[in-house]
């Protein structure tokens, strides 16, 4: 059983389209994250939700909109895709609380290619 699962694994689309990436975790965690990893492998936080509440919202274009229907799911919707959005997007989850609980577990990533 995959602990943090993302779909799709690969996404190829044209500029200007709107697309969504889904993430689900079965670890019982209450905090979920979206990261973007660029071509230089730099992993950067985009958003985080804790119990369905947005707690991290980094400087990300407002074309990106996360949505958490429940604490086991965090989806990412991207409007009007641009070439620069091409990257690997990782979902992660952790159990909130003290430092001992803040290990984040990552999904396998979604490789987005915008043509």
């Amino acid at each position: 059983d995959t602990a943090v699962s993302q779909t799709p694994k690969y996404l190829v689309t044209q500029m200007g389209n709107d697309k969504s990436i889904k993430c689900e975790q079965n670890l019982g965690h209450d905090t979920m994250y979206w990261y973007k990893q660029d071509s230089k492998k730099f992993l950067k936080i985009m958003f985080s939700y804790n119990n369905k509440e947005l707690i991290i919202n980094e400087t990300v274009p407002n074309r990106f909109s996360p949505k958490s229907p429940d604490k086991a799911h965090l989806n990412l919707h991207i409007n009007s895709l641009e070439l620069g959005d091409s990257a690997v997007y990782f979902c992660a989850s952790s159990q909130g609380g003290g430092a001992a609980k803040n290990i984040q577990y990552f999904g396998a990533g979604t490789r987005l290619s915008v043509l």
Partner: protein
Amino acid sequence: EDKVVQSPLSLVVHEGDTVTLNCSYEVTNFRSLLWYKQEKKAPTFLFMLTSSGIEKKSGRLSSILDKKELFSILNITATQTGDSAIYLCAVRSGGSNYKLTFGKGTLLTVNP
């Protein structure tokens, strides 16, 4: 802004060598430092360090934190080709948002 710097950015060694990867950080209100290994897909958790001077060990991998000098090292002894990966260092800083700031990683290649 929180900053995490890893060195070297890449490293090529032969099987059996010992390697040391470095991670230095500048963050406000440090909480913990984490090491991850990323092969082709998801980063996988290796260690979390919160206290200075206490070595964490798992097989041939070990790590230690120096909170005074603001750095951590990850050691891998008797390297194997399966150790080839990107090793990521991340730091959690203060606040309730559980945010991790990652370094750019060290690409380790172990040749047979």
